[in-house]
């Protein structure tokens, strides 16, 4: 039997049944921008950066199952324009100040902003009031940069078995909370050894006293744009960003 294949921007991409468009593309070394997707976790489809056009309809590449013969449009001016707008929305929703952020150069949001040539935040800033939680001895929580991808929620629940994180509020008031009556990270069982301590794609969960051990300018996305890291064939050491 022939291997099922989809067409991604005109290129044939073979996949195995049950894979999503994102998984098929990743396996083929093709980059689809994403923030809330992570290969280790069940797809959730909330950031919408991976919006592609499949057989003429807009869908999330991370949740949509690949189908044989499916025609997928990914790297097009229309889609990249929409993605740029989504990035701008995320930038104005939180308080992102890249020059002083210790995650600079290692941040997926920043890397995508460079990749998609986002030059300004465009929309008026919301400047939300999101106090920092520095209660934990090892870890700092800076909610200002949270993009609500829920990777920490998923990692803490599914890998660490701790359920340290959850979401509360709704609409623009949706926000990350921790599992303690005091609302403080120090009063949870969180530890730097947890998977959840290392999945944040932006700079919310930060290990204390390590921020600049690796100087800004020499970090992952400083060395090479995210799209090019992905474009390398699988197995060559550049198959996708480390999460």
């Amino acid at each position, binding site marked *: 039997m022939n291997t099922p294949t989809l067409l991604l921007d005109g290129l044939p991409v073979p996949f195995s049944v049950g894979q999503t468009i994102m998984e098929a593309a990743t396996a083929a070394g093709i980059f689809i921008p994403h923030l809330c997707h992570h290969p280790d976790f069940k797809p959730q489809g*909330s950031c919408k950066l991976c919006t592609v056009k499949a057989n003429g309809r807009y869908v999330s590449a991370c949740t949509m199952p690949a189908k044989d013969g499916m025609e997928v449009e990914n790297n097009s001016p229309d889609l990249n324009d929409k993605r740029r707008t*989504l990035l701008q929305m995320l930038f104005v929703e939180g308080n992102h100040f890249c020059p002083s952020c210790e995650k600079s150069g290692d941040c997926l949001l920043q890397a995508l902003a460079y990749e998609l040539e986002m030059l300004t935040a465009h929309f008026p800033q919301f400047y939300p009031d999101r106090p920092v939680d520095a209660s934990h001895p090892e870890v700092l929580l800076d909610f200002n940069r949270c993009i609500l991808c829920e990777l920490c929620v998923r990692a803490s629940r599914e890998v660490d078995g701790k359920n340290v994180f959850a979401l*509360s*509020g*709704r*609409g623009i008031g*949706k926000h990350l909370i921790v599992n*303690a*009556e005091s609302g403080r990270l120090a009063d949870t069982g969180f530890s730097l050894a947890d998977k959840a301590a290392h999945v944040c794609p932006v700079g919310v969960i930060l290990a204390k006293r390590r921020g600049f051990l690796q100087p800004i300018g020499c970090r992952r996305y400083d060395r090479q744009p995210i799209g090019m890291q992905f474009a390398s064939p699988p197995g060559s050491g550049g198959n996708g960003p480390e999460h």
Partner: protein
Amino acid sequence: MVVADECFDATAVAALLQPVVDRHRRDPLRLLQILREAQEVLGYLPRTALTAIADAVELPRARVEGVAGFYSFLHLQPVGRYRILFSDNVTDRMLGSVELMDRLCHRLWIERGKVSEDGLVSVDTTSCTGMCDQGPALLVNGRPLTRLSAERIDRISELVRAQVAVSDWPEEWFLVADNIRRRDVLLATASTPGEAMRAAVARGREPLLDELKRSNLRGRGGAGFTTHTKWEAARCAPCRDPQGGRYLVCNADEGEPGTFKDRVLLASHADLVFDGMSVAAFAIGARQGLLYLRGEYAWLLPALNENLARRRRNGLLGVAACGQQDWNFDIDIHLGAGAYVCGEETALLESLEGRRGVPRIRPPYPAQQGYRGQPTVVNNVETLCKVGLIALRGGDWFAGLGTKQSTGTKLLSIAGDVESPGVYEYPFGVSIDQVLHDCGAGNAQAVQVGGPSGSCLALHEFTRRIAFEDVPTAGAFTVFGAHRDLFEVARNFAHFFAHESCGFCTPCRVGTTLVANCMDKIARGDGSQYDINEIFRIHRLLHAASHCGLGQTACNPLFDTLNKFRPAYERRLRSLDFVPAFDLDQSLSIARQMTVRDDPAAHFGPAAGVQRAER
């Protein structure tokens, strides 16, 4: 008196909540019901209560807090002993709700959205309460109070200040009229309880499904999916847990602003609703029916529960329901807690399972994996009433009504600038003109059909027809007279969607807020063509990239009004070039307040010029 958090000692709270959690068998799937009832006991949900509940249902505390934080009617902070929420639908506004709320706040000497210092009262707005035919309306401690007037507001303020219990307020204030103005086959049917159910059983499962197929009934909740196809899919889908069985869910989360027909059906035709649920459950082989009632309609709960108890006594529910030895079926009512998005069927299922009302990724569809992961049919209240009629009178009869693509009748909730607001039942295919004539809308410039997520029709479109093949609708029909400002209508809708977005996906969460801010900017007189272009741009993004229908349709009313009523926007624009939203002088106002300084030198820009000129 405000009950501060620290007054709620953990042991005392756990003891107070024990009957609540026990009544719900400490079942995490009943978390939303537990939270609602815990709030009734404690007034609000203090931190210690969330911990106690989390322990009782064995869920992470943060999960419980996340659910409590999602719903508008659940409070994590102390609220007034009198919680007054004005319905903020555009029809309430047209009837003067904004002025009445200001009047009440003024008389009670309080600020909107804040609890009075003595903890006695809070006044705020809430999304449409489903009383547009008898507004302006408010909810006081969950009870609807209709037909507000200045005199009534003054009396309310007196009763609150005298601390008269809401149960001792004049009974006639709480009367909710049905306002049925036009009856067709559904509203004219006076069936006895169980009649439709017995007719279905007499036909047998297969012939019943055949009748439904022949009727070509399409769902009345808005999407218009063929009911028979949905049932067939759920009936044939394998159960992941054979013990769990299939489920039948009645969607009574009528949250679309401007619609209230389900309220009337639940108030006066509840037997037909429950019969329809039983018929559907019988057809798909479900043993459990769930009615998800919106929190705004909590006042209907006692009568609905009495009705269910009566049906159990009469053998229509329970073991060997309706005389069918091999069929046990019962119906349970779940109450929502103020979240429009829960009308979306997968968000509704999440809410039924005690979670945040976030729409699921589809596929799988509920017919394959719904409530508890089992095959589930979710039908609207009106759809289930129609099911009852089809069981009684057959599919061909039903298919003979309405149009070929849209068989049967449709209930319209008519409100706005009309002489006789209320519920009208028409065969599908009725023209907008006909409806406007019947309800006494003399001078309409526009009709919003299907509520904010529907479409706004202008004068030249009034010959169009209500039907899935022309103007589809879940039932809302809001009329705007020539004197109404459609920009303000659209602005109200923009705020509605920003308030009701679940926040799951980026475009809807941020986009609806950006649009609402943009509309406020234009309303302030700081708008330009730039802002209109922005609205179009965000509309295109939301339409393409949103996770569910809420985001996809959120900008529809703006898109329609911008295209059809552009002067309503343009006369507000300050210039055709860009005008920034940021107002430096306004931003200095806090500093002026703090320094108690308001002289001209403390102002910036044009405001300083005005002040200096006045001097």
